[in-house]
């Protein structure tokens, strides 16, 4: 007991020293960088990639529909490019991880455009119904399909209230390194999990910023200082189908009641 206490005391003082040294170094060398880092808190993963994911983080996305341009498909294009989604000219069965949806209010004629993808529910119906455990929600809140154990039964597709999942009907070749996908398995938005694990942001969010629309924010919902949490606190953010109480990781702003 004594030993372990001593050890942790040593560790913590060493960590204190290191963090102070790092802060001092940053301030002395480049104050601008420090400012930049503060603004970026909780916006990307800082977990070393040899450590398992944990529920310390919950990755989510916030979409401001008032900034989402009608007719713009850059998020969809970026997603297709990132995941190597190749169409076979059959829109009924071709995979879609993200799609643009236009909502029209009949009374006023007002149109709202928004991207719709896997909502990364905390209590995900897809994971509930999966008979093999292939559909699961990772500890950091990203809903995934483990295609190694997916048997292609498609119960998850029926269970998903957002129609977010696709089934791969045809043999696939020339897949992307970071996006394995193959015939006979179900797939959906992975929140670009490989990018996130390597400290990046999803391709759709990146593309939206590149277009200067900035309608999508990615970040850690568990970090009160992250851009996404601050915006949610200030302006709120709706879940789609809140009646289902799924605690989705993707939230929307600018939707009318």
């Amino acid at each position, binding site marked *: 007991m004594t030993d372990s206490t001593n050890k942790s005391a040593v560790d913590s003082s060493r960590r204190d020293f290191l963090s102070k040294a790092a802060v001092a170094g940053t301030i002395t060398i480049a104050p601008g960088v420090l400012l930049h880092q503060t603004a970026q808190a909780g916006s990307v993963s800082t*977990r*070393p*990639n*040899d*450590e*398992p*994911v944990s529920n310390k983080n919950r990755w989510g996305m916030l979409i401001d529909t008032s900034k989402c341009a009608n*007719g713009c*498909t850059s998020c*969809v*294009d970026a997603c*297709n*490019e990132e995941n*190597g*989604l*190749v*169409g076979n*000219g059959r*829109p009924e069965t*071709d995979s879609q991880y993200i799609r*643009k*949806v*236009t*909502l*029209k*209010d*009949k009374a006023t004629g007002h*149109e*709202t455009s928004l991207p719709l993808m896997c909502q990364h529910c905390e209590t995900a119906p897809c994971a509930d119904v999966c008979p093999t455990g292939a559909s*699961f929600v*990772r*500890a*950091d809140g990203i809903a*995934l399909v*483990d*295609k*190694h154990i997916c048997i292609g039964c498609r119960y998850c597709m029926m269970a998903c209230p957002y129609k977010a999942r696709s089934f791969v009907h045809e*043999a*696939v*070749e*020339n*897949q*992307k*390194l970071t996006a*394995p*996908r*193959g*015939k*006979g*398995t179900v797939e959906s938005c992975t929140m670009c*999990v*490989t990018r996130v*694990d*390597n400290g990046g942001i999803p391709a759709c969010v990146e593309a939206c910023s590149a277009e200067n629309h900035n309608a999508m924010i990615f970040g850690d919902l568990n970090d009160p200082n992250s851009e996404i949490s601050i915006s949610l606190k200030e302006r709120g953010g709706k879940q789609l189908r809140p009646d289902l109480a799924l605690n989705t990781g993707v939230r929307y702003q600018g939707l*009318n009641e």
Partner: protein
Amino acid sequence: MTRFLRQVAVLVYALFGLTLLSTSALADSPFPTINEPADENVKCIHPEDEMRRNHMNYILHERDETMHEGIRNEPESLANCIDCHVKPDDKGEIASIESKQHFCSGCHQYASVQIDCFQCHADRPQKYINRDKQTSSLRHNLQQTLANKTGVDQ
């Protein structure tokens, strides 16, 4: 006694015949060799004999850790195998998994062991795959769909 000698002679001929047969069979399908890493500065992470026997155990273990826990630093990943060992031939052409020339298929076809990894995973390093055509066709489809977009009532 003569009968016994005759039997022995037949046996010797039979054995000799078998040896000839097996030698010619070997000549037809030579024992596959392993491609050296494409980059000369990169060293193999394990000895060849170890990898011939146990590569499947290494990558199966990593598979679950990577998929479920997001651990992505392990050197024995399928992506690393492919990235190092799959390289173009002298003519600059790169074999797909269907071909016996592919790093994995060479042994797997020889040993008659079916390999499922590449139904989902990339069988070639990304730098050798030209994707422009495929994604542009998908973009075209999408733009057509959007052109015929139907409004959804809120």
